[in-house]
């Protein structure tokens, strides 16, 4: 068979299998709906995670390290340390706050101006506010950076106030794991749904399969239309899942936006982007194909002409 004829035959089978699905629209839609819901659930979790990450893009600020220098450190020494820290790959910015500036700010915002006048000397040290690079904004990265800063001469103390962010990141990590598990399980579910639908289809077309085998059809030839059906079921389910997620995003983006505004945030719930949507469709088609391949291989082999 020529290459052209081979592809023409496949295209014919592809369209033919779509026609068979269209012949039973209600049953096919039911199957696609079940597949769609199974895909939509982990997809929603993924979307929540993506949005949580998006909302937290400024969180590395929360990991800022306040580096208090020794009282003896001069302004020049402080700036040298700042320059050194800026040269590190895991540091994105360093702000220098010299003791007089710190005192002035404290006087302005604390309301203890009169009390400060009573002090004989400025009790505040020179301070560096170190913002880690985004890649280093993890508990482990921060710990490494903190240790490196403490090793510098002239540094007295390093303070991080990031416990809440760590908790939040831990929750996101947990959610990510749950999403992965749910995605895996529901992916297997999609395969089983597609496989079971194809199994029933095979049983319904038993006579046809017997005839095909009698006139010389190989298992591969007989299996082909069922594999394409599996792909169609998967793609249909994937499209429904995308539609469900789009509806869910549209339904809750308004209330979420209002809530965010109450907290002074401009956060907006983002839907799925095109590349992700294409990946979802491809994965759905692949799962449909895999489920149908497993079912078709097993059941078609068992059918023989009598």
């Amino acid at each position, binding site marked *: 068979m*020529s290459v052209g*004829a081979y592809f023409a035959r496949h295209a014919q089978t592809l369209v033919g299998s779509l026609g068979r699905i269209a012949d039973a629209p209600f049953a096919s839609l039911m199957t696609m709906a079940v597949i769609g819901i199974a895909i939509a659930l982990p997809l929603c979790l993924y979307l929540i995670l993506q949005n949580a990450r998006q909302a937290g893009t400024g969180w590395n600020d929360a990991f800022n390290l306040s580096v208090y220098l020794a009282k003896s450190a001069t302004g020049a020494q402080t700036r040298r340390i700042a320059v050194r820290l800026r040269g590190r790959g895991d540091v994105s910015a360093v702000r220098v706050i010299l003791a007089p500036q710190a005192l002035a700010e404290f006087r302005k915002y604390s309301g203890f101006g009169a009390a400060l006048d009573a002090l004989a000397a400025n009790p505040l040290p020179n301070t560096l506010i170190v913002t880690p690079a985004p890649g280093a904004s993890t508990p482990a990265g921060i710990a490494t950076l903190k240790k490196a800063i403490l090793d510098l001469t002239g540094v007295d103390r390093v303070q991080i106030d990031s416990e809440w962010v760590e908790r939040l990141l831990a929750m996101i990590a947990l959610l990510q794991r749950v999403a992965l598990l749910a995605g895996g399980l529901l992916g297997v579910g999609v395969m089983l749904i597609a496989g079971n639908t194809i199994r029933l289809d095979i049983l319904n077309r038993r*006579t046809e399969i017997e*005839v095909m085998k009698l006139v*010389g*059809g190989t298992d591969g030839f007989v299996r082909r239309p069922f594999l394409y059906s599996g792909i169609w079921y998967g793609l249909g389910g994937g499209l429904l899942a995308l539609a469900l997620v789009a509806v869910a995003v549209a339904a809750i983006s308004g209330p979420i936006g209002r809530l965010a505004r109450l907290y002074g945030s401009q956060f907006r719930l983002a839907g799925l982007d095109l590349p992700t949507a294409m990946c979802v469709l491809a994965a759905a088609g692949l799962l449909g194909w895999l489920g149908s391949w497993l079912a078709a291989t097993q059941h078609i082999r068992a059918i023989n002409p009598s």
Partner: protein
Amino acid sequence: MIQFDQVHKRYPSGREALAGVSFKIERGDLTFLTGPSGAGKSSILKLIALIERPTRGRVVVGDRATASIGARGVAQFRRQIGVVFQDNKLLFDRPVGDNVALPLIIAGVPRKEIDKRVRAALDQVGLLGKERNRPMELSAGEQQRVGIARAVVGKPPLLIADEPTGNLDPDLSLEVMRLFKRFNDVGVTVVVATHDLHLIDQFGARRIVLGDGRVAVQTPT
């Protein structure tokens, strides 16, 4: 062409369909397998088409012992045999043309060639112009002729038929048998299982008479 050598066939139910059957059919023969129901006619055809395997003994079809054909080779082997059934085994949800084209599609024949050969096969059985009809729209005799067209469209060297006239009236039966004779006249080896002795008498071809799973009588070619 076909050789059975002390062939036994016992089904899982315990029924012994064939008990030491031996015969030889030469290339280009027209042979009738006959005998009462349960004599083993269908079992012989099933062994020829590799629908069943012998319990014991040797079956040779073409130049190959069927025992040497593994599961993967069965499909290719069956493409060399045209099979006609009593119930014609047509796909009733597909047009006549698609039914006849099936062996060619499976064999990967180009579409244009398929169309040409389907029309030729339907012409041979007197159904040219019925390509788009559904089998349900045809009479029993026409349906059987569609089955025959499907069996011969791939130009197999061997044509086997299991009670092909079982559901037909005498006139249609004769018509179908004449078709087999015509294919035999152009060199196709034809083996027909039938219990219709009256019909066989009109062709004077070779007979293998079976009884209780054994060859009772063989007439020479």
